[in-house]
């Protein structure tokens, strides 16, 4: 057993720092309220080292204090991503190494969905959440079909471009349109391709459930907040055989 507690400057001192804002004018009462919050969070004693009015009716605090909690790393449970997160450089290198050609990604929004915000966030070089989109990856050839692509058009484009992966975004969810469209899409690909040749199918959108991939007949479902790097890493992981260097962080 290896129990630990926070370390300030002496083993076992349990010291932590915390900053927060309370919606209250700065006063002695405000500082007392900050101590009370810190106490309730388990900091005892808690020392308000800084309090500053911030805008009208707000005060910002920095609090130092001791916590008595112990943590046991042996009981920590983590859900690991089942693929390593790669930088664009690593993803490019992995593709180069194992495929010796560019990996082709075809993407679009199917059905009547005109919301390309999701697919564009993933594919456009502009990207999302500070990460560049898939167009930025030198070893990825990205074909973005845009909005309102029919399933036959998508299959056709995938064949024409010899797609290794197909990305579909669905934002509109009225009457479960996203689920129906996705099932129609995966069925069409199963029909059009022999199992070993079928491109990797990936769908994404804010209302999908990540556990539904099997039920929808796709290889992966991504949901709200997914970044281009995650999608690229997944595709590279599934389509390149070479083990990649960087571990999931």
């Amino acid at each position: 057993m290896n129990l630990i507690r926070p370390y300030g400057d002496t083993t076992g001192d349990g010291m932590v720092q915390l900053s927060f804002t309370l919606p209250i004018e700065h006063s002695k009462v405000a500082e007392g309220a900050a101590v009370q919050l810190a106490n309730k969070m388990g900091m005892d004693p808690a020392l308000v080292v800084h309090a500053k009015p911030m805008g009208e009716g707000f005060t910002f605090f920095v609090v130092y204090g001791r916590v008595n909690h112990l943590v046991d790393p042996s009981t920590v449970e983590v859900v690991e991503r089942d693929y390593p997160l790669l930088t664009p450089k690593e993803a490019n290198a992995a593709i180069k190494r194992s495929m010796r050609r560019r990996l082709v990604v075809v993407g679009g929004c199917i059905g009547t969905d005109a919301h390309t915000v999701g697919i564009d966030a993933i594919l456009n070089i502009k990207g999302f959440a500070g990460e560049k989109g898939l167009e930025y990856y030198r070893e990825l050839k990205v074909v973005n079909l845009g909005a309102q692509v029919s399933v036959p058009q998508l299959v056709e484009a995938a064949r024409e471009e010899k797609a290794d992966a197909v990305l579909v975004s669905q934002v509109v969810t009225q009457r479960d349109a996203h689920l129906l469209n996705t099932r129609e899409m995966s069925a069409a690909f199963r029909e059009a391709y022999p199992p070993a040749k079928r491109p990797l199918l990936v769908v994404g959108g804010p209302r999908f459930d990540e556990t539904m991939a099997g039920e929808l007949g796709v290889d992966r479902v991504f949901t709200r907040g997914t970044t281009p790097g995650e999608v690229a890493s997944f595709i590279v992981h599934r389509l390149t055989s070479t083990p990649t260097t960087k571990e999931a962080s």
Partner: protein
Amino acid sequence: MAKRTSQLGIDTADVRRARTLARQVGKPIVDLATQHTTVSVERATLRLAGLGGADPDGTPWVNRLADAVRADVGLEHGVSLPVWDALLRGEADDLLTLAQKAAAGSVTFRIPEGRDATRATSASRKAVGAGIKQIDRQRASREKMIAKIGDAPSKPWIYLIVATGDIMEDIPQAQAAAREGADVIAVIRSTGQSLLDFVPEGATREGFAGTYATQENFRLMRAALDETSRELGRYVRLTNYASGLCMPEIAALAGLERLDMMLNDSMYGILFRDINPIRTFVDQRFSRQVHARAGIIINTGEDNYLTTADAIEAAHTVTTSQLLNEYFAKEAGLEDWQLGLGHAFEIDPEVPDSFRLELAHAMLARELFPDAPLKWMPPTRHMTGDIFKGYLLDGFFNLVGALTGQGILLVGMMTEAVVTPWISDRDLALQNVRYVMNAAGKLHEDFRPAPDGFIANRAREVLGEAVALLEEIKDDRTVKGQPPLLSAIADGTFGLMKRPPHKGRGLDGVARKASDYYNPATEILEAK
């Protein structure tokens, strides 16, 4: 004006050479732009004539009307003559009714000839002229307000962002930011609006990581900031984004609703949004003509290059783009004080001498564009979530800003890439700016880089590379008869992206002008 001598040892002949090259590269693009029109240019013209609102499905009436005209007579003549001809023929009493009837298919448009054409020309000119007069009035009322209640107290102007997605939530946040010291408020747009081929309508309360740019949202925010400006005794400027498929329309709405600054880059849409190059250049020119008239300061998007390419290797692409943006802007009628040319502090802090390199790049921009405000963008790429280190980095960013007299300083947040800024993040960021400006705001009076030192050499090196790149672009003859800049963009010269002129979004909304093309807005805007 005092005679300026270069602190960086830059030869004025080199600067002239750079500008000459930018003109040689830019001119064929301007020619191309004048030979084409786009659906958005035509819709902007209808908006200037007062057509607003949307059908029950949310499709703006300007789209419905322009589409109907296009279906009947094509886009190449412009929509103005067919539209005002239909009004003169008594198809409808006003534009809105005409749009409604056109959408229902009960109007047939034609290209008027002879006296009908003359009458349609003068009627359209009168209607569009009213919109441009409104833009003039808004410009005058901005000037009046500044004279009466006061301007931002000092330079650089402090630029803060709000982005909740809900205009009603944005308003109190913007007012709070202004009270905390912001001189400029930018309302970030919803992700992907730049790819919509229409401008959404009305006050909007949900967006993706930003708020839709609509005429009503513009109006509401400007009115709120007018109130705050009076309360604070200084005019608080409002910024939004023109770039995208609807540049001309958003520019028109910005002028009508008295926005003060607009993001408007000549190539951003092409490179980062895969918008067709011709569409972009045509739209860009028209939108900048409108900004020029409206007294709006444009902000260009060079910082984006550095978020994709390495900030040292690609430093000269920033300079090249600034020179091109300057040429296109001036050609469209913008003046030096309206050119918020962009650049950014994005060098990896682990690189030795990174601060000296940043300073060299920023000083180069300052020397090349002495009368432009320049927009200085904070670090984003190397903000890792270590907020303590990020706070220091932002301090150094502010120091470069102080040393190089930047006109517009986007305030860096230590929580960049962590959360949308909290109230405390904003306050701490402003304390950072104030401390640096207070402590070192006049350091530029004492600071001279050593004549052949690291900074001066680096600045000259970057300018040399920019000139070489412009020369390379000018000599690009990949496709005969095609403007070299289009070929260069197709080759992937900028930001690593290859964008051929016959591809990209919005190409189907471009038309080559026929000999009888007429656009009253262009005529009025170019007359001055």
